[in-house]
């Protein structure tokens, strides 16, 4: 063995240095894993077949609406909250306008709005809110657990941010997710995307549903 009163051989020095480098690397990797924010936006992650997944939520009239209720028709699903002054009304109004521009095909897909604010948004609040947009919209909310499940399924980032006066706002994923008649993810419509490409995408999910009539039936 190596005694301490003797200078280490070059080989031992190299081995030691390598070992220290390995320790440093392990510490670095470990701290990255440990300290990485757990609530990072997940919207950009790879969309697998499992995207979306089962959910059960509550409609304004108190009835339950699940992924099975929506099956048989493609849908555009968006997450927001009724007290959101900007992106939410803009997006819902836009969906209503895109639906109108599609003419008869406009009713061949559903529009679904899911609250990210169970603390404030009760079914009646959602009902009153979506009625502003003058087109049929599934306005859904649920228990914190139910909403957590659907958010996880859709990789939706949600973060409550306090504002002055004890109130709060909510940072959240603002993409519109387009799902086919089987509830499988097809694509997204981005907030900044122009109407032309958004219409093309909606036409695509409607056409695919019409081309596959077996998927066009409610189970």
């Amino acid at each position, binding site marked *: 063995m190596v005694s301490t009163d003797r200078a280490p051989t070059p080989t031992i020095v190299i081995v030691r240095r390598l070992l220290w480098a390995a320790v440093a690397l392990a510490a670095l990797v470990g701290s990255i894993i440990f300290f990485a924010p757990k609530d990072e936006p997940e919207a950009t992650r790879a969309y697998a077949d499992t995207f979306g997944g089962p959910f059960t939520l509550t409609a304004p009239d108190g009835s339950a609406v699940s992924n099975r209720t929506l099956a048989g028709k493609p849908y555009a699903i968006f997450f927001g909250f*009724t007290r959101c002054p900007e992106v939410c009304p803009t997006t819902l109004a836009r969906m209503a306008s895109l639906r109108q521009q599609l003419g008869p095909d406009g009713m061949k897909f559903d529009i679904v709005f899911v609250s990210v604010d169970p603390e404030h948004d009760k079914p009646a609040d959602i009902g*009153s809110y979506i009625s502003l947009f003058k087109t049929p919209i599934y306005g859904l909310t649920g228990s914190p657990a139910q909403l957590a499940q659907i958010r996880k399924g859709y990789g939706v980032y949600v973060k409550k941010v306090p504002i002055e006066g004890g109130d709060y706002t909510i940072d959240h994923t603002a993409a519109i997710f387009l799902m086919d008649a089987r509830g499988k993810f097809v694509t997204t419509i981005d907030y900044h995307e122009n109407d032309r490409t958004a219409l093309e995408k909606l036409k695509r999910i409607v056409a695919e549903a019409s081309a596959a009539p077996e998927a066009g039936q409610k189970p």
Partner: protein
Amino acid sequence: MTFVTRLAAIALLSAAATPLLAQSVTAGKLVIDQAWSRQTAPTQKVGGGFLSITNKGKTADRLVSATSPVATEVQLHTMSMDGGVMRMRQMKDGIAIPAGKTVELKPGGLHVMFIGLKRPLAVGDSVPVKLRFARQGEVQVRFKVQPVGATGPAEARHGQH
């Protein structure tokens, strides 16, 4: 119809038409126009307001706060899209209005936020808002309420002109 009654009718019509147009307010070197807001649902307690502020002077000013009788509080906010996530933040230091520049508060960015609405904002309403600037002081403006689908001050009507 006599000339006088015709004139009166025209005057009445113009008076009735005025509230439909984006109103411009000049206060010192500041010109504020296109102040508008979106209608809100009966249960909605917040709403966004938008406007354009032009500083024709040689000195920078700053919009520091706002108040309105329709809301318990009015805050200045900004909104941004970051990796598909909408983030809203309060502009605690207000909004800078540089000399010779126009600052637009519009959907997708800066806005005035009405918090604790005492009644819903209905289409056609004209909401009084007192803006307070660091240099210019208080300026009273009226925000015209547009349908929820509006993206600008009076787009539906501009098509008619």
